[in-house]
């Protein structure tokens, strides 16, 4: 094999590995903002050297909640460790008031309670679940708004909306992802309007449930705007790393439909 061909192979291999690292990081979600950390501009450096991967993460403020910071650092660590050729992972959170502690805790696999023995009463799974429930609730509102606006569904019929009724792509895939996080299956005949345990909302509950879901969605969206803006203020170069959040209510139109009238 000529040196030139060998170089090409090495380059192809390292590009392939870099893509795998990026894909793994793309599965790490900011629990509050319900978005991948790669889209938010939180990943500031990713390096592959042989079988070692090192990644740096940054957050919008030094006082971002340590629990969410810990979840993102430890999820990134797990996602990267899951790549078959990787045998050494370093995830470093930077510019955070508790960065040293969180970095040490994750690197030593101490768990959250091991990292915060004084302050934490338990691991973060119930916190994570709470935000997965919110993300699912907000996404139902997005999908329903879309169906009313673009597919002429009547609000009172939404209780019979099934997954197979949803447009392919972001609406259907997005809902499946959030259902999977909650442990719900997503068969084509499964109803969209269900709670976090998969129980269908009754017709009488639907208006109030949707109204609440909308407030949840507005909270998440608003927090995302704020955090994205703060990250750009803190790190002006972050603007180029952030991917558009996309329209707030999924569809293509700019107007917000009057699905849930007050």
């Amino acid at each position: 094999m000529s040196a030139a061909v060998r170089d090409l192979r090495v380059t192809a291999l390292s590009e392939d590995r870099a893509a795998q690292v990026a894909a793994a990081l793309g599965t790490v979600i900011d629990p509050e903002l319900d978005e991948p950390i790669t889209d938010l501009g939180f990943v500031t450096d990713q390096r592959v050297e042989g079988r070692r991967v090192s990644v740096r993460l940054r957050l919008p403020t030094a006082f971002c909640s340590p629990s969410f910071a810990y979840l993102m650092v430890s999820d990134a660590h797990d996602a990267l460790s899951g790549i078959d050729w990787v045998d050494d992972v370093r995830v470093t959170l930077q510019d955070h008031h508790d960065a040293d502690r969180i970095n040490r805790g994750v690197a030593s696999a101490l768990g959250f309670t091991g990292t915060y023995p004084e302050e934490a009463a338990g691991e973060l799974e119930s916190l994570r679940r709470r935000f997965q429930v919110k993300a699912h609730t907000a996404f139902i509102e997005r999908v329903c708004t879309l169906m009313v606006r673009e597919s002429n569904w009547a609000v009172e019929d939404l209780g019979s909306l099934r997954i197979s009724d949803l447009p392919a792509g972001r609406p259907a895939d997005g809902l499946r992802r959030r259902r999977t996080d909650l442990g719900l299956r997503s068969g084509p005949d499964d109803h969209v309007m269900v709670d976090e345990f998969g129980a269908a909302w009754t017709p009488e509950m639907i208006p109030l449930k949707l109204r609440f879901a909308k407030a949840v969605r507005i909270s998440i969206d608003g927090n995302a705007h704020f955090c994205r803006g703060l990250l750009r203020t803190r790190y002006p170069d972050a603007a180029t790393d952030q991917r558009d959040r996309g329209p707030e209510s999924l569809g293509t139109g700019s107007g917000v439909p009057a699905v849930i009238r007050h």
Partner: protein
Amino acid sequence: MYWKDGENYFIVDAHLHMWDASDENQKNIHGAQFIECFYDYHRNLSPEEYVWTLEDYKNYSEEQFMTDIFDNGYADHAIFNPAALNDFYVNGFSRPLAWDMAQRNPDRLTYNHNFDPRNGEVGLRQLEEDAAKYTLKGVKLYTAEWHGDSRGYRLSDPWAYKYLEKCQELGIKNVHVHKGPTIKPLDRDAFDVSDIDHCATDFPDLNFIVEHVGLPRLEDFCWIATQESNVYGGLAVAIPFIHTRPRYWAQIIGELLSWIGEDRILFGSDYALWQPKWLIEKFVDFQIPEDMQGEYKPITTNQKKKILGLNAAGLYPHIKVPEELQLREPAMASSSSQGPIGSE
């Protein structure tokens, strides 16, 4: 007072600070990080012409404050809501000067103080002394404040209840609560507002003003405030979105008006985080965008008057509203304040 298009608005800025975050007053790296975080809030959401330098922002003069709040900022009355942050700042974050200023300007400034239930019995006695010294009508609580090993507390904690009982006994009616990050135990939702639900039920004579309307947990705040008539929402940190994201602001104020109604929303600039001048001017000019008016009713002038000052004056009766600045016709029984059940 602010006036526009023949309408006069009585202005109460219900949330502001006189802080000292100067390098000399910073106790540790966290003091520096804290003010830098505030500074990023300031420059991220302010119109460019209102952005200060970090140096000016760390420590501003009484003169600057009075100009910004009363000359440029239209306020008839303003309420200090100090934050101690003694673990971050040598002499605390908020300057004692605020109390001097309030004494010299009793018609224009109200001074609220703070307490920390983690100070136990000693703090309870201190609260009694403070209530007498400052003739307290309100307190500002920062539940996320660090205190030794503790990273915060909840208002439903047993010791917090003892302090709230004391407030009731001392006639301190208004409890402003900052819902902020980092609450012990850390594994809970850091912005959880559910502790307010408990104390609002158990202390019906107190008013709980949730600063920042619980953002980013707007839905939880709205849900609680709908059930508890003594829960109010302070707009500090929410209202600056009016400049950078007016459509998003329309959703926030639209949701608030529909869930909790026009009588329980309070304007606050959070000065020096943001300058009240532009917030007030933009809010008076603001309307729900036309294409969103199917979802949210247009905001009326009377609603703006209540939010900008009359609601806060209702909570602090020593703030006298001149007859000509009251609403022209008696407020209708607030039609937009509807319970969540059966309101559709």
